[in-house]
């Protein structure tokens, strides 16, 4: 995927700002490097940031979203429960 042309321009400008600010402190640079996205390119950025389909295949598994719901659904289906645990909910921020 390629960033929208206007977005690339914004990033190029931010790099110029970075070069211009090289004499400043790291804190100053951190602020100056970041340029806002133009309203006109918002939709393109939204599309660009969509994770690749193959990277989110795990979301297609019909997960029950908590332990007890899993037990109840397993009883209903008369199948074993597969329980996947992580620190931070696996279907959220983990």
């Amino acid at each position, binding site marked *: 995927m390629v960033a929208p042309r206007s977005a*690339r321009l914004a990033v190029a400008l931010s790099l110029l700002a970075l070069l211009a600010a090289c004499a400043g402190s790291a804190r100053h640079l951190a602020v100056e490097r970041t340029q806002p996205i133009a*309203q006109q390119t918002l939709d393109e*950025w939204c599309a660009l940031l969509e994770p690749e389909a193959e990277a989110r*295949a795990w979301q297609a598994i019909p997960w029950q979203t908590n332990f007890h719901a899993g*037990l109840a659904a397993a009883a209903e289906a008369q199948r*074993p429960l*597969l329980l996947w*645990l992580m620190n931070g909910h696996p279907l959220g*921020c983990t």
Partner: protein
Amino acid sequence: MAGRASVWNDAAVQALAQRFVPATDESWRLQTSADPEARFFRVMVEGTPEPVGGSRQGTYVCTPDGRLLARGNSTDPRRIEAVLRQGLAAWEALPPAERTQAAPESARAAHRWEDSFPVDGLALTAIHRDLARAEDGTLQPQAGRWNLDHVWFSRDEARQWLPSEPVVGARTALPEALVRRWASFHLVDNVRGQEGPFAPEDIEQAEIATVVTRSEGTRVELAIEGRTRAESDGTWKLGRNHWDKFPNRARGVSAQLTGRAVFDWATHRFVEFRMVALGEAWGGSGLNGRRADVATRHPLAWRFTLVGDTPADRIAPAFVDIYGAAWVRRPDANLSAGE
């Protein structure tokens, strides 16, 4: 979080998962909470309802009434495939009567953060992505480097994004409490793994405002602009809570936000919401994959859009327990340990 992709995107594991009822949950709460659901889990895997330390992340196979059949933790899909096959063999060896047990009521949760999902408010899905500089100097998303979270606002909080009179050009600055929620809990560097939140004292700049760009019938279109900068010296400043044991190190995030939203007065809901934050992160616990390097600025982006209507869309924000919002229902005092 590597296992999320390496294991569960694997075709053979996905095919095998169809022979189970698959479920997911948050590990730390099940290890440490006094909630009946967590106590039941610990009896199943540890033989005791008492809280357990260390990590119980991983994959488990059990019967619907809570008999453990197999367990393992790996980012290698072949090892998890073996755990699933072991669990399936143990299941098939059980007498039929032991496969038809009901789920115990004693395992039902007394409290879950998902209970506070703002049905009539504003709920967003956040996609966090690492960016990298291409040869031409542009920023591109790094393949596979992404995470997700949710952002919640109550009905009253959602209303605070709008002016009292929705005339074109009217500007509304978000109240401090809502801007702080963004800067403390949602513009955090957790693309590669969980990172700690920012305390109010860490927030050096936080401004988010909306401007009415269109007003037709019951619908008001808003442009959203903002910027935040937060930097922590690594000292924990958010008091005693679920996160106070999190490895806290010097880190920072700066971001600029651009968005567009449409609010419908007829339903008192946002019917469209798109916002992107472009920024940089540095330092951190190491769990965020930055190796605690405060000298290097890593470009990253966050995208926020309205949630869908599946149960997964109702998973609570990572830091909902420290939102500090009265509408978020907390566990009863005697169940609050580990929540």
